[in-house]
């Protein structure tokens, strides 16, 4: 590598890597952190909604028609979609919900045996706060959240390729970890290690995230081949994803035929196609119109692909209107989406997704730390304020995000029962705490000893322990009890919180060590490693 061009290439990629990281670091961390938690979104729901933790009062299962009767009583008249989620391993309640027509997407949990409404204590923060934060940042205006997440995913791909390109000795770097060297060096080692270890996962997860929302991010193909009108889009959706088009009759519906009979028919057809399974979602579209349809989707538990094998029925007669059949490229798109969504049942793989997501969070956090450490002293000497501002934003955007999430979980356990909108209250606690974390970090931005990093890391440890304690105090489900009963959803969230607290304590201590504090015994070893690497 003596010629000028490759040297320039590597330097360019280094520049690109740094700036993509600085510009998108906080956004990417938010997406990765929320995505990693979303791997266990339903388990977090069960932790946050104690009444949904157990199965039914009896062994029998309430019928879909009973659930429909509850929907008819509860859903507002304007809602255009009624939803029924039959109970499953990850969601033991019988869940009903409604959306569309200007009605907010709302879900209610029913006892799976009696279909009695379960009292709501706390909102479904896993599936409705954490998970949408992952892909839309709760920014609905002009799809801005989706576009920011898409831009961050592209930045992730750019960061991965440029990061690999800057490395002269990627293999050696992978086996180098000097935890006792100065923070900048240790953080860089950890950045390299987590980055390289999880590289294929990170690349696949960012690219598949873009592929999922291709119809938002890249409309040029649909425009060129179908046109730009809403009707053209409907035609594309019908051809590509075999969606049903049935305009309302604008006459009232006399009555709905038996949903349970439709479910039995759908199961018969799925088995006939060699893909037996249970319905996981029953959707009634235009539920009060004479042209109401009932869509049954097959549970995703046995496959990667997100093809739902939807069978659509005429609600009034129970006659089959349509069966979903996807063309080849659509099947590929659904498979790539499934790779990202992990809706299949496989606890080991689910755990690995969580581990790889955590590696991504560590990679982003340490990358940010390296950038800040490099510049703090230099910029303080030069009297530049920019780097300390960026550092404060990074503290709040990474550690502060964890503080906000944990404060929200604590609030979830402290909110009184019977609130109209517990999720709204949790949302306000989450964003309020996040804003407070930003103010805290900005107030401490002139620190020379990483006080903002350390204080927020300490807050993470305290709040994680508090969440576990509050869960035990408010529900009686402490770890000894949930572990003994094998209730892994609740026990798992508690164990995750404890592991997080331990990590946060370690980080608080490590961030507090003075600069260049190499322990004498390991310093020799480290310099030896460095000598070999050179």
């Amino acid at each position, binding site marked *: 590598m003596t010629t000028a061009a490759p040297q*320039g290439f590597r*330097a360019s990629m280094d520049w690109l890597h740094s700036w993509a990281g600085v510009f998108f670091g906080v956004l990417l961390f938010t997406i990765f952190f929320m995505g990693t938690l979303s791997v266990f979104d339903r388990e977090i729901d069960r932790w946050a909604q104690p009444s949904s933790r157990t199965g039914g009062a009896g062994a029998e299962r309430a019928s879909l028609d009973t659930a429909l009767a509850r929907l008819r009583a509860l859903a507002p008249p304007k809602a255009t979609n009624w939803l029924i989620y039959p109970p499953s391993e990850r969601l033991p309640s019988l869940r009903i919900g409604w959306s569309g027509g200007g009605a907010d997407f709302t879900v209610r949990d029913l006892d799976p045996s009696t279909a009695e409404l379960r009292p709501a204590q706390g909102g479904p923060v896993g599936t409705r706060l954490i998970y949408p934060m992952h892909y839309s940042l709760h920014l609905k205006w002009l799809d801005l959240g989706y576009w920011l997440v898409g831009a961050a995913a592209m930045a992730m791909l750019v960061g991965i390729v440029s990061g690999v390109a800057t490395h002269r000795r990627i293999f050696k770097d992978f086996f180098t970890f000097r935890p006792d060297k100065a923070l900048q060096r240790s953080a860089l080692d950890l950045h390299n290690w987590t980055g390289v270890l999880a590289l294929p996962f990170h690349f696949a997860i960012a690219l598949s995230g873009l592929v999922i929302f291709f119809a938002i991010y890249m409309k040029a193909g649909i425009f060129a081949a179908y046109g730009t009108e809403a009707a053209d889009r409907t035609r594309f959706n019908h051809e590509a994803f075999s969606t*049903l088009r049935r305009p309302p009759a604008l006459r009232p519906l006399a009555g709905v035929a038996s949903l349970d009979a439709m479910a039995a028919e759908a199961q018969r057809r799925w088995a006939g196609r060699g893909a037996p399974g249970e319905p996981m979602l029953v959707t009634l579209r235009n539920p009060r119109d004479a042209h109401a349809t009932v869509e049954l989707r097959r549970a995703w538990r046995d496959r990667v692909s997100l093809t739902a094998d939807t069978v659509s029925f005429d609600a009034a007669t129970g006659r089959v209107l349509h069966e979903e059949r996807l063309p080849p490229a659509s099947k*590929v798109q659904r498979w790539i989406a499934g790779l990202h969504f992990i809706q299949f049942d496989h606890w080991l793989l689910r755990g690995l997704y969580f581990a790889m997501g955590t590696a991504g969070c560590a990679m982003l956090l340490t990358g940010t730390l390296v950038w800040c450490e490099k510049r703090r002293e230099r910029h303080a000497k030069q009297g530049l304020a920019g780097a300390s501002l960026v550092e404060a934003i990074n503290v709040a955007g990474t550690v502060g995000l964890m503080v906000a999430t944990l404060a929200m979980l604590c609030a979830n356990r402290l909110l009184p029962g019977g609130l109209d909108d517990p999720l709204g209250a949790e949302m306000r606690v989450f964003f309020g705490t996040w804003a407070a974390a930003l103010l805290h970090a900005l107030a401490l931005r002139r620190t020379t000893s990483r006080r903002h990093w350390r204080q927020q890391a300490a807050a993470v440890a305290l709040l994680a322990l508090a969440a576990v304690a509050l869960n035990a105090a408010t529900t009686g489900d402490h770890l000894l009890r949930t572990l003994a009963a094998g209730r892994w959803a609740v026990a798992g969230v508690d164990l995750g919180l404890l592991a997080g607290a331990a990590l946060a304590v370690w980080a608080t201590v490590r961030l507090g060590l003075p600069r260049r504090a190499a322990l004498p015994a390991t310093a020799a070893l480290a310099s030896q490693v460095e000598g070999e690497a050179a």
Partner: protein
Amino acid sequence: MARRSFTPAEAAARTACAVLGGYALAACFTAFLSRALPAAAVLAPSDAVLTASMLSFIVYLAVILRVFALRRVRRAIAETLAVSAAFATAAALLPAPAGAPDHPAARQPLASRSPP
């Protein structure tokens, strides 16, 4: 590590070329392929759109990297514009595929077909 620092103007030009020019090129590529594959009777329109759209993200990534890897900014801008224009022109010259694609999915009985 030899650190190259772009001048602010050069950094801005490369970033704009990569982000906006790269997206434009990827979009023109997608439009072209979405028309060319059905026109050449290789794929049904919906398959062509999906194939092109999924590939577009890789094309975008490649353009971003190339814009930063090239030594001269002018060359990067010229290349990006020229290739985008070529794809856009080719796409405009091709006809949009006609309504019913020759695919089993489209031949299903459509109880749902909306009234004309």
